[in-house]
């Protein structure tokens, strides 16, 4: 372990940070909040077949005590509003996993008037899982990768949110508090 600490110090991570990250990655609480159909993949992951708890990951009922926000599937505009509130309630450090194709580019809801397309524009996502739906193995792989990212100090979504707060707020406002129609008068005349 001393060798590892020495190695990480060379990579500009102090010994103290290394130890903190070491413990953080071993006690992850998943927020028990499900936005879309992806929630059906979570019970098998958490119960005996795949047994998430052997990695030190467990479900948590309230955002104030959770570490990882798992956005499972499509997010409608009304859900987005709640998601932003939930995300901002979570204490730092906090991480977001985008789950399934819907969070990446809208998935099969790409053309929908009521479902956002790119989740990363509204809250910072640390890691995406592709697929519709992702298999439980993919979820485990993503959590494993997230743990490695935490150890390496790379999962800094919460810092990104603070640094680009204006940009994220602008994007959120465009959706939630937009004034006026997106189709101008010129479009109406063409019809």
């Amino acid at each position: 372990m001393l060798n590892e600490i020495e190695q990480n110090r060379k990579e500009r991570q102090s010994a103290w940070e290394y130890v903190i990250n070491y413990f953080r990655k071993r006690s992850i609480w998943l927020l028990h909040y499900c936005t879309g159909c992806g929630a059906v993949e979570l019970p098998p992951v958490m119960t005996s077949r795949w047994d998430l708890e052997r990695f030190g990951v467990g479900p948590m009922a309230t955002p104030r005590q959770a570490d990882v926000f798992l956005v499972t599937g499509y997010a409608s505009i009304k859900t987005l509003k709640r998601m932003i509130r939930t995300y901002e309630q979570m204490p730092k450090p906090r991480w977001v996993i985008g789950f399934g194709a819907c969070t990446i580019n809208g998935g099969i809801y790409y053309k929908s008037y009521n479902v956002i397309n790119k989740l990363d524009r509204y809250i910072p996502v640390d890691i995406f899982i592709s697929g519709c739906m992702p298999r439980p193995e993919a979820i485990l792989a993503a959590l494993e990768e997230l743990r490695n990212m935490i150890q390496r100090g790379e999962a800094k979504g919460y810092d990104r949110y603070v640094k680009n707060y204006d940009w994220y707020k602008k994007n959120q406002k465009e959706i939630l508090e937009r004034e006026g129609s997106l189709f101008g008068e010129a479009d109406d005349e063409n019809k």
Partner: protein
Amino acid sequence: MKTSDILNKTKELFPYIATELFEEQQGRVYVCSDHFLNVLVYLRNSSFVHLANIFAIDWIEEKEFELNYNLWSYDHNSSIIVKVRIPREKPEIPTVLDLWEHGQVYEQEIHEFFGIEFAGNPDLSPLFLHNWKEIPPMRKDFDTEEYSKRAFDVGEREGAK
């Protein structure tokens, strides 16, 4: 009573409607918007106590909306769909809240997604959409793909690092 008998009896009482036996237990009644309340009152009083659903169809080429009232009778085990067409310009139809109180949410939803006015309904506030500024989204002339592109797909990840 069989569904076909119910349809024949309704046809006798209201000669201006058209009826069709769609399946053994499902009939359809076509009626114009001036007389549709009479037919609904009659069916309500002859044991069709359950309004299962109201749904709307946008026939944009014929410039009409079609409203469908799904009724169910527990006594006769039969279902009747009352179909009524109204013009697409300024669509308005009397409410059925006096017959079926629980029609409230159906009418609210149709008002939100098609823009059809239900005369006499006191509460037509939005149920589902958040901050909606466009024409009602389920109308056929609403371009959902273009809307999605303009609202959610604008620009790349400029700014975020």
